[in-house]
Every structure is written in structure tokens, then in C-alpha cells.
């Protein structure tokens, strides 16, 4: 594998070389590989599908079938920071819906929308496991909990500043 060309960084390629050897079958590495590839590339492009299929030893169709099942995997690029607002029951009871509405207004986009400058995407998501600290939001992989519309503004502002650096 190492001698073939790769679209991934040397670090990620090395990680994948190891990952497929950890399991009794190579295919077990498929879901983690897709997620890590998405972290680096931004989305699951056709080139990602092709290379992951080749590395795991399955058909590209198999990869597409699997990736369409998992809600975190996407086939289109999105904003730099994906704001995922939970509105499931525990968050709903503590203002999750209002928080989502607030984010929509503040960012000027809707569910699965991306801001024109490409900084933010917004998504209404199902339970993220922050029920006792509701309402909660995940920005990419980072949790923000016990939020109010005011503290949400601060969170968004922090990410906006990060994007400018």
C-alpha cells in the first residue's frame, strides 16, 4: 500500500496502514477510516471512496452503501465549523428548540445550511449524550453545554475569531 499513491497526508496514510491490521478482517476498519478521512478532507469525496475501497479491499459500491447509513458521514463539503444543536427530549425541555431557532437567526442559515463565508454550517441533531447538561451543542467534536442564547453567541464568536486566524 505504501508504494501506491495516496490522497491522504503521510500521517493518515500510515495510520490507515496500521488500522487495517488491527482487526481479524480488514473491512472492520472501514467506518473509522471514512470518519478519519472526512476529518482530513472535509467530506467523503469520490477520491476518498476509491482509495478507502482499495485499502480495505471492497468494492466502491460497498463503501457508498456503508457511508450512506451513518449520519456523521457526508458526501458534500460543509463549513469549517459544524454547529450541531441537539433538540431531542432532554435538550427540548431546557430550550433546545429555542437555541436552534436562535442559531438559525444568528447565522442566517437553516438546517444543513452553510454560511456564505464558509465558516459555519448548522445542523439539528439527535441526542449527543449531554442530557444532564442540556441544552447542548457540538461544534465539530467539541461539546458546549448548559447553553443559553447569550452564551451561544459567545461560543459562535469564539469560533468566528478562530476562523480568522
Amino acid at each position, binding site marked *: 500500500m505504501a508504494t501506491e499513491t495516496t490522497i491522504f497526508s503521510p500521517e493518515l496514510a500510515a495510520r490507515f496502514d496500521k488500522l487495517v491490521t488491527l482487526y481479524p478482517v480488514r473491512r472492520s476498519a472501514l467506518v473509522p477510516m471514512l470518519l478519519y478521512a472526512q476529518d482530513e478532507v472535509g467530506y467523503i469525496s469520490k477520491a476518498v471512496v476509491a482509495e478507502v475501497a482499495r485499502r480495505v479491499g471492497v468494492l466502491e459500491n460497498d463503501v457508498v452503501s456503508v457511508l450512506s*447509513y*451513518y*449520519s*456523521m458521514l457526508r458526501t458534500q463539503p460543509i463549513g469549517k465549523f459544524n454547529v450541531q444543536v441537539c433538540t431531542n*427530549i*432532554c435538550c427540548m425541555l431546557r430550550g433546545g428548540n429555542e437555541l436552534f*431557532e436562535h442559531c438559525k437567526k444568528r447565522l442566517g442559515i437553516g438546517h444543513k445550511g452553510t454560511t456564505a463565508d464558509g465558516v459555519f454550517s448548522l445542523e439539528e441533531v439527535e*441526542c449527543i449524550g449531554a442530557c444532564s*447538561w442540556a441544552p447542548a451543542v457540538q461544534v465539530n467534536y467539541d461539546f458546549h453545554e448548559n447553553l443559553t442564547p447569550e452564551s451561544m453567541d459567545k461560543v459562535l464568536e469564539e469560533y468566528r475569531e478562530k476562523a480568522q486566524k
Partner: protein
Amino acid sequence: MAYLTTHPDVVPVVSYRFGKGATNIDRYIELDGYKAARKAIEMGPEAVIAEMKASNLRGRGGAGFPTGMKWSFVPKQSEKPKYILVNGDESEPATCKDRLIFEHDPHSVIEGVIIAGLAVGAKMGFIYLRGEYRYLLNIMEKAIEDAYAKGFLGKNIFGSGIEFEAVSHTGAGAYEVGEESALMESLEGKRGIPRIRPPFPAVVGLYGGPTVINNAETLATVPHIIRMGGAEYAKIGTERNGGTRLFCLSGHLEKPGVYELPMGYNLKRMIYEVGGGIPGGRKLKAVVPGGSSTPVLLPEEIDIGMDFDQVGKAGSMLGSGGVVVLDETVCMVEFALRTMRFYQHESCGWCIPCREGTDWLKKSLTRVHAGGGVDKDIDNIQYLAENMLGRTFCPLGDAAAMPTIAFVKKFRKEFEDHLDGKGCPYKHSLQHEAVLA
């Protein structure tokens, strides 16, 4: 970032290393870490299983199956390799306890996996975390690496000549994968679609080999049981319900949080004493006692002990330990609808009663909530839900149907108040036309 909340009634067993820096392996060892695994090697498989049976530990994922019994179902002789699989795909709404374990005490999970492996003769374990828990995956990966470096994992664990390998694994967003057979499919690199049983995983599981699948909290408890002895652990809880549980209190409470309390702890006390009661002096309307799939309880039904048997007797389930408190401002139709939106979104579509049932229930509940329902809709909702029960490959169908039946039965008047163009009588209620794509 996630933390345990304290209260005088808390009994720290699983949580006893939380907040003490136990992600560091040396600190973990200082705090009695990996003693249980060494002890289990000396005890041998049969004595370990006997100790687990004596502990009365029941699965913390939701079904409450006795752990020792589950382990004893694994055949001693097997041509195919055996596996241990940790279910850390914590996704049941209202459940946020495994997060604390991974964050504060990752080695307890690894130690639990090793002991389970010793008990059933498995040489490999997988720790599956939901994809959203990336920061926890990083913690787990580091912990596994450290355990290998110390010789606690590998070809010759603790110098005993026994081999045991552990691998951490990430999902990528799917509630359904928390179901044991879908979890195995996902780990094999496929869509998370449930398998028909029998054969059960203990006989034919991961890669076709006998497999023990336990919730993360269950396995994190195992080292404590081996260390303190099964009988001692059993004493903390109630009859047939040993030990403690991480209860996740959420919703309309002064002090929501995760608390470790003895099994059988009174639910009313949990809400009013531990959780600090309801803000603003508002009245209690309902309690969902064990995650979103468990039937709702009325205020007059909550003077019960929180163990699998007592909550079962009250007509609900202890489930995953997620206690959701609803005050008088909640529209129960909206709550039922939001619950159903979740199950409709997460249904894998493999079997028809669940795929079609959740979709029709979501549509019917949306219509009723918006005021477009007629009397017959309420009966139809109940009829649909009742006909999903027990007719699906996996429990997701039941998980969607059971709470719905309870919402309609216990709050029928509130459903009726929405009918014939009247719409939702609750002020703060949002319309659900814009559902998840």
C-alpha cells in the same frame, strides 16, 4: 468536561476514581487499579463467573440481563475465536453516563474487558464508542497504549502467559448500532442492520465467533466486583439487583446531573432530594424513568424503588438509567412527537413494522399536535404502536412503540384537547412542520 454531581446519598463504586486523575495509568494503579485483573487470573474462569453471578449485576445498557449468566452461556470449546465487545455507543436519549466512565476512568473499562476475556476464554476485546465521542476515543486510545506498555495487554498479560488484545473503535453516528447485533455488523464494517436471533451472540457473534457484548458501565463495574467480592457488591442494591447505578437526571430539575446511587433508590426521593425538585415551584407532570424508550410514569406512580423489577412492576422499565423529569408546562403530544421523530429518524429501515410504523406515527402525531387530527387518529396511533410490539428484528420497534402507547393511555385527554382544529394549548410549544430532513 462531563462530571459527576455529588449528593450525600451517592455511593461511589463505579465513580470512585472520577475526578482523581485516573486516566493516568500510574494513578489508576495507585487507586487499586489492575488488582482485580491479577486476582481474576489467580481465581480462574469458573470462580470469576461464580463471583459475577453472586454480585447480581444486571446489564446497564437497558435490558438488565444478569451479566454472570450471560458470560456462562459462552461455550467453553469453540473452533472460532471468542470476543468481548464493549458497547459504548451510548445513544439512547436521556443517557450520558458512559461518557463519564470513558472520560474519568478508561482503565476500568479495559480491566473489565480483560476480566471478561479471562472468564470466557476470549483473547481479544473491542471497545466501540459512538462517533460523536471523539475526545473520549482519544482518551481510550491512550489508555490502551499505556496498558500495552505495562504488559497488561498483549501476548503475556501480567506475566501470566495469557494473551489478550484490546482495540478501540469509533462509530460514525447511528442510534441503531447500540443494538447488540447491529453493533457487530458495524464493527465488521457494514451498515448497522440487526441480525435475526437465534443464534445469539454468545454462540455466533462477531466474525462468527462466540461473543460477549456488555455495556461500558457493566464492564467498568466488573473490576470492582472482583475486588470487593460479589456478595459485598450485591449487598449495596436490592434483591436480584446488585450494586449501584449511574443515574442520569435530566429535564425540569434544579440539579440535573449524573449521580451514582444504589439500585432500588426511591424515584421520588431521586427527583425531589437528589435532583433538587422542580424549578419555580412548578408541578410535576410526568417522569420517563429509564431513557426515551421507557413508558412514562405519572406523579402518583413514582414512589417506587429504581431497580429492574420494581420499575417493571410499575409498568415501565429501568432501561439505561436516564430519568427525565417533565413539569406542568410540557405538552405531552409534543413530547411524544419529539420522541417519535427520533425513532423515525433512527429506524434502519430493515424491517417493515418499524420503518413504516415509526413514519406513520410521526405523521399522525405531527397532525394531531398541529390541530389537524380527528378522534380516530388517537386510536390509530395506539393501534399502530401496539402492532409494532414484538414484530421487529430488534428492539428499536418496541422502543418506539412502548412509550407511545403509554403517552396515549395516560394522557388521552391531552391528545383530545388538540383535535378538530384546536391545536396545541401550550404557549411555548413549537410547531414541528420542519422535521429533520
